[in-house]
């Protein structure tokens, strides 16, 4: 795997219990996506006109502008497109939970999403590593984190 050399000090990605996170401002259109997370289902949008998927979700397809778009459940499997290890952040609640590992995951079905890597050793976290979704419950919200598969 492609693990760059660098000034990294060893770390473990936070556990599902400690990974820092703040609530979104959801809206009527996106609420079904958040509700699906609560039900342990990860959704993207799929266009019946051009056949492409997209995320973040829009009512109309950003690729072809068709409105023949619907929610589509994905497997929750993908690869780690890139990541960083945040070691400084003066914004709450993140500053109290350092380090943590924000990441971009490329889903096997196409779209990418921002997430956080959890429950993984720094020895296994690397660009292009296989990852799987882990749903994390926080109060009224459930969000998709990922761990190294």
């Amino acid at each position: 795997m492609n693990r760059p050399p660098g000034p990294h000090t060893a770390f473990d990605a936070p556990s599902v219990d400690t990974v820092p996170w703040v609530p979104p401002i959801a809206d009527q259109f996106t609420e079904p996506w958040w509700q699906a997370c609560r039900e342990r289902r990860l959704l993207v949008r799929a266009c019946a006109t051009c056949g492409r998927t997209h995320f973040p979700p829009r009512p109309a397809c950003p690729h072809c502008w068709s409105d023949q778009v619907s929610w589509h459940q994905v497997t929750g499997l993908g690869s780690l497109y890139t990541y960083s290890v945040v070691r400084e952040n003066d914004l709450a609640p993140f500053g109290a939970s350092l380090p943590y590992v924000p990441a971009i995951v490329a889903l096997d079905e196409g779209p990418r999403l921002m997430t956080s890597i959890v429950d993984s050793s720094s020895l296994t976290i690397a660009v292009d590593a296989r990852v799987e979704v882990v749903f994390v419950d926080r109060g009224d919200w459930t969000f998709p984190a990922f761990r190294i598969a």
Partner: protein
Amino acid sequence: MVVPRRVAVVGAGLSDLGRVDDKTELQLHQQAIRRAVADAGLTRDDIDGLCSTGTGVLSPIEVAEYVGLSQRLRHVESSTVGGSTWEFMSRHAASAIALGLVDVVVLSYASTTRADLKRGVRTSNLSFGARDNQQFDAPFGHTLVSKYAMAAQRHMAQYGTTIEQLAEVAVSARANAADNPEAYYRDPITIDDVLSSRPIADPLTKLQCCIRSDGGGAVVLAAEDRARDLAKAPVWILGTGEAVSHVTMSEWPDFTESPCVRSGRDAFAQAGVTPADIDVCQLYDSFTITVLLTLEGLGFCPPGEAGRFVEGGTLRIGGGLPTNTDGGGLSACHPGMRGMFLIVEAVRQLRGESAARQVADARLACVNGTGGWMSSASTMILGVD
């Protein structure tokens, strides 16, 4: 039919820089604007356009009002595309001047980022909200530094770029800053210094991140019929381009490609020159990786090759492609956003005003602003007769 006029940068000025604890942003705007207009040999009565942003509500009207120009302007603009804003504005103002809509346009910027942090009136990291697409990004707490760090991580994995090559960008900037009396940091640093500095967001350490200083700047653009008989030799705007990409990180198609691929293509084509013709570069260095992506995107080297390209001091004054000759945002001057200062330094180099840091025979400069988190790019090709 309107025959387009040529457009030049005819004035450039900086406000107080570095540590400015005794002035507000609007006061720095006024100082920089007056200095730039005086540098051009013009007066306030010559100005009929103003482009500015970065302050409170309704900027640039706020700036126009403060400097007493609001009742006479016929070209006003406030793009909001991040640190590349002044390159975008230059392109838009040059277009308006070329068409004859306006004759003399001032661009300005000022920020007291450093003083505000010191006074505790702003946080180091900024929240950009969690609505719409940001509801899927912001909850995870990716900082601005980590967004650029993700690009660095991907570039290293995809192309084998080393952390030492990234560090060389910071070392070169500091070497250039040594000869700039206005630079914030001037003491030489080594690659080891860069790598052993405080880790902020892997793989970026503190010395790979732009500094936070105070200051402002302004430039004056004018039509060729005005530019010919002013105080300083005109610095011609030969080509410009602008491009945007993403706000939501998951929407950035390729974390190793800057939108300057598109803005640079347009700018070089309009100017009728190639990267090989360029004598000096001012490339926004928010972080070390920004410079690598920009060098590749503009075609100074092939994709993936920028790490090797910068090795050995290519970017230093006296190197193969002197870049960020004032010491850049990494060492010299970065009050919140840097786009304005790129243009000021390019103008000074092309006029031969740069004293100890002057690049010999600098005739053609490339300026590239990068905004947001590789969200926007604007390229300018500048030249002297």
